[in-house]
């Protein structure tokens, strides 16, 4: 695992993407085939099953480091990462051994069959044989959630360079589920007959938020304009009379959405639809809160099915009668999509995405402004002659989300962050006035610049009133403007409201706490939205 750990270190020590790609290419050139497969699998975010309990790991590490358990916990709290904490506290290794990456993964899978005592012995033995970097990587493999500072796009780029293939082909081949033990590099990446894997989705084409006024996009007649819906982006695939529903996160969700089960007999073989899975009633989307009652639920009862009925609002057709039509213009794909959905009929839980008829950009802007009342997020702008690209790209597709709602809140609690923000107070709780009492209404973690974070951190350390475990309450002084996408009543929060996607917009140094918003202001926002 020395080579993999060295790759990790090299990537961590640079902020330049080219240097990262170079390091990956060099690793691919020298590593064993099985290790490359596992490396790619881990780096694109596939997780291993956890076979060791977190508490056990903590106890073994504390014991080896001769630390009381509470001190280990305190340390973990400061570091913010369990794998790193363990790595830091363990005593120096005695003799070094180099275990391969796939050998290590095999070991971590096999350990599931061990008794507790055997597990402890085996892990401790490995720890004793590894230096800092390998230990850290090893612990990361155990605890899962391996983030290395390389995006999937960079892995794809490095693989494309190493194997002299197109990036789009590599991107496609990596989609979906594959098991590094059961596949060869040849089969995974190099076999160009892409339909070999019938369940495989296409890489999603994603849009950036519009950066310039829409007028800069030119003649509106060259654009297709649609509502931007707030559901789960997905692909519905029917090949060989079998249905697959994939989320954008490349999770296979076929079983979670029984609404689509009949499509395997309704849609022609060789069909791939791109669209938004969303709760829908009487021709309109329901609020996202209703979608949340479906996500994360293991068993789906008929009651949930009734309360949150799902459809896919389809906006693109990627494969038609077994043919990949992504390189045809959007206007062509749209026409094929319209024809297909007309044949399928209205009972299939497939809805055609509405093309908005707008005379000019001014009209588009007005549709966008009304988004919040209509339970959509804004508008999508797609060039009619655009091909279906892979990944997030500028130019031919744009999302133009509605401006967020904002409110001024007072900082009342702070907690230290994790990962990149470990050791700094970066997790804040904000309050609004309810008469003369401050009631917490939102937590936010992001939005400040690094410099502001340091400044606020410094202020918090000097103006703490009280500590409750990791949480500090601070003096009533700092006001921040928060942005959020939506607001609803909530019985779970003291303030009686719940915000969607709250984040810090800016630090209002010009405002005193007395000038912050009130609970009444928040309730009025809900009323305005519901009316």
């Amino acid at each position: 695992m020395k080579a993999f750990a060295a790759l990790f270190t090299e990537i961590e020590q640079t902020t330049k993407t080219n240097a990262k790609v170079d390091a990956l290419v060099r690793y691919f050139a020298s590593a064993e085939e099985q290790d490359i497969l596992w490396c790619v699998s881990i780096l694109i975010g596939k997780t291993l099953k956890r076979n060791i309990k977190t508490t056990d790991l903590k106890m073994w590490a504390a014991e080896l480091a001769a630390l009381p358990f509470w001190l280990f916990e305190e340390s973990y709290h400061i570091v913010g990462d369990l794998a790193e904490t363990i790595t830091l506290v363990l005593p120096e290794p005695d003799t070094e051994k180099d275990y391969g990456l796939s050998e290590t993964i095999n070991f971590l899978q096999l350990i599931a069959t061990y008794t507790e005592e055997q597990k402890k012995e085996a892990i401790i033995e490995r720890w004793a044989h590894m230096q800092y970097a390998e230990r850290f990587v090893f612990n990361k493999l155990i605890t899962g959630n391996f983030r290395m500072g390389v995006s999937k796009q960079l892995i794809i780029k490095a693989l494309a360079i190493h194997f002299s293939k197109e990036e789009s082909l590599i991107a496609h081949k990596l989609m979906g589920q594959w098991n590094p033990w059961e596949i060869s590099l040849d089969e995974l990446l190099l076999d160009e007959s892409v339909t070999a894997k019938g369940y495989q989705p296409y890489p999603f084409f994603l849009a950036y938020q519009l950066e310039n006024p829409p007028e800069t996009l030119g003649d509106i007649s060259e654009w297709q304009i649609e509502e931007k819906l707030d559901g789960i982006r997905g692909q519905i695939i029917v090949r060989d009379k079998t249905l697959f529903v994939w989320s954008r996160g490349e999770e296979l969700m076929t079983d979670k959405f029984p609404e689509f089960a009949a499509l395997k007999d309704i849609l022609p073989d060789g069909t791939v639809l791109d669209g938004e899975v969303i709760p829908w009633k009487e021709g309109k989307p329901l609020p996202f809160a209703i979608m949340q009652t479906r996500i994360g639920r293991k068993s789906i009862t008929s009651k949930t099915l009734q309360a949150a009925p799902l459809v896919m609002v389809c906006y693109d057709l990627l494969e038609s009668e077994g043919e990949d039509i992504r390189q045809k213009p959007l206007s062509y794909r749209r026409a094929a999509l319209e024809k297909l959905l007309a044949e399928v009929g209205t009972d299939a839980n497939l809805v055609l995405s509405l093309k908005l008829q707008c005379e000019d950009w001014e009209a588009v802007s007005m549709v966008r402004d009304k988004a919040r009342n209509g339970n959509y997020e804004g508008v999508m702008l797609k060039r009619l002659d655009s091909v279906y690209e892979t990944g997030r790209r500028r130019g031919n597709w744009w999302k133009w989300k509605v401006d967020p709602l904002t409110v001024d809140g007072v900082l009342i609690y702070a907690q230290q962050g994790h990962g990149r923000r470990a050791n700094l107070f970066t997790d804040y709780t904000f309050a609004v006035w309810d008469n003369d009492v401050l009631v917490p209404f939102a937590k936010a973690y992001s939005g400040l610049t690094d410099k502001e974070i340091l400044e606020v951190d410094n202020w918090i350390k000097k103006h703490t009133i009280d500590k409750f475990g990791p949480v500090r309450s601070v003096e009533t002084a700092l006001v921040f403007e928060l942005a959020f996408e939506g607001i609803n009543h909530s019985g779970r929060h003291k303030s009686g409201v719940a915000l969607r996607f709250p984040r810090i917009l800016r630090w209002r140094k010009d405002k005193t706490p007395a000038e912050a918003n009130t609970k009444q202001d928040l309730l009025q926002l809900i009323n305005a939205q519901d009316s």
Partner: protein
Amino acid sequence: MLRFDDKGIYCEQADIYIDPWKPVDKALITHAHSDHAYAGNKAYLCHKDSVALLRLRLGADINVEGIDYGQTVYINGVKISFHPAGHIIGSAQIRLEYNGEIWVVSGDYKLQHDDVSVPFESVKCHHFITESTFGLPIYKFPAPEVVHADINQWWEKNASEGKNSVIIGYALGKSQRIIQHLDENIGNIYTHGAVDNINNTLIQNGIHLKETTRVTPELSKKDFNGAIIVAPPSAVGSPWLNRFGPFSLGVCSGWMQLRGARRRRSADRGFILSDHCDWQQLNEAIKLSGAENVYVTHGYKTVFAKWLRESCGLNASEVDTLYENDEEALAEPLPAENNDENNQ
């Protein structure tokens, strides 16, 4: 004999304060960092190597007296002496003895040798006041020679790739330590004005430092080819750095031990180099002091005091001080305006 009040650490018998943060009549200063040596005191007593540094930072007209390590002075019956703390040049632990009771105020200190300051010497006492900046078992600093070798290797690699190297460390202490271990065979060593001011003051007072060149507007871009530039944290992100491009940025600090801190810095490299104690050094120093009473100041004081009480059987308590602005004790130093190093 000592107590902590709202001005600093007070000795009533001698009527003196140690490292006071509010003006007093007589201040004993452990070292010249700004959070231990505040302006406005009527009289200062410090180690002789700190005298010029205090004048540089607090004003040439201050009333300051310097004494050597091990030299003894009596103030109203209190026997006072200064002992090497190994933190920076002129840093001292202050020992106070009265009626057979001995206290040591260690200020900031480290047990690692830096080859610039006089190494830490343990002083036996009954009461020991210690900082706890890195008082958690996650802080285990690598051997300095390994870190210095890494720095030189990084510099050499940058030079071979046509990049200059900018290395960040506090102007007083860390910078001199970095400079003393740079390998001049790799290239020229340049310094930021704030670093050069400190270096000149030290050289004028008989401290031997490696030859360096101050960065001035007359120098042209090609002068910096393959060079290393030593600069304080305030330089990070400032336009002052532009003239050195393309460059790789390295940061030297104990905080670089944690991955989160390394990634937060948009530095290319973080080197774990600290003038404070890590966990093991703190524990060793306390053990060597033989003190049964330990007062824990700035840092992870709650946790560290609890550890000393529960696992080491010591009578330890945490103490609030204003030594939180230590140039390194700050989790991360603020850029530019809040940093007194910015006098370029």
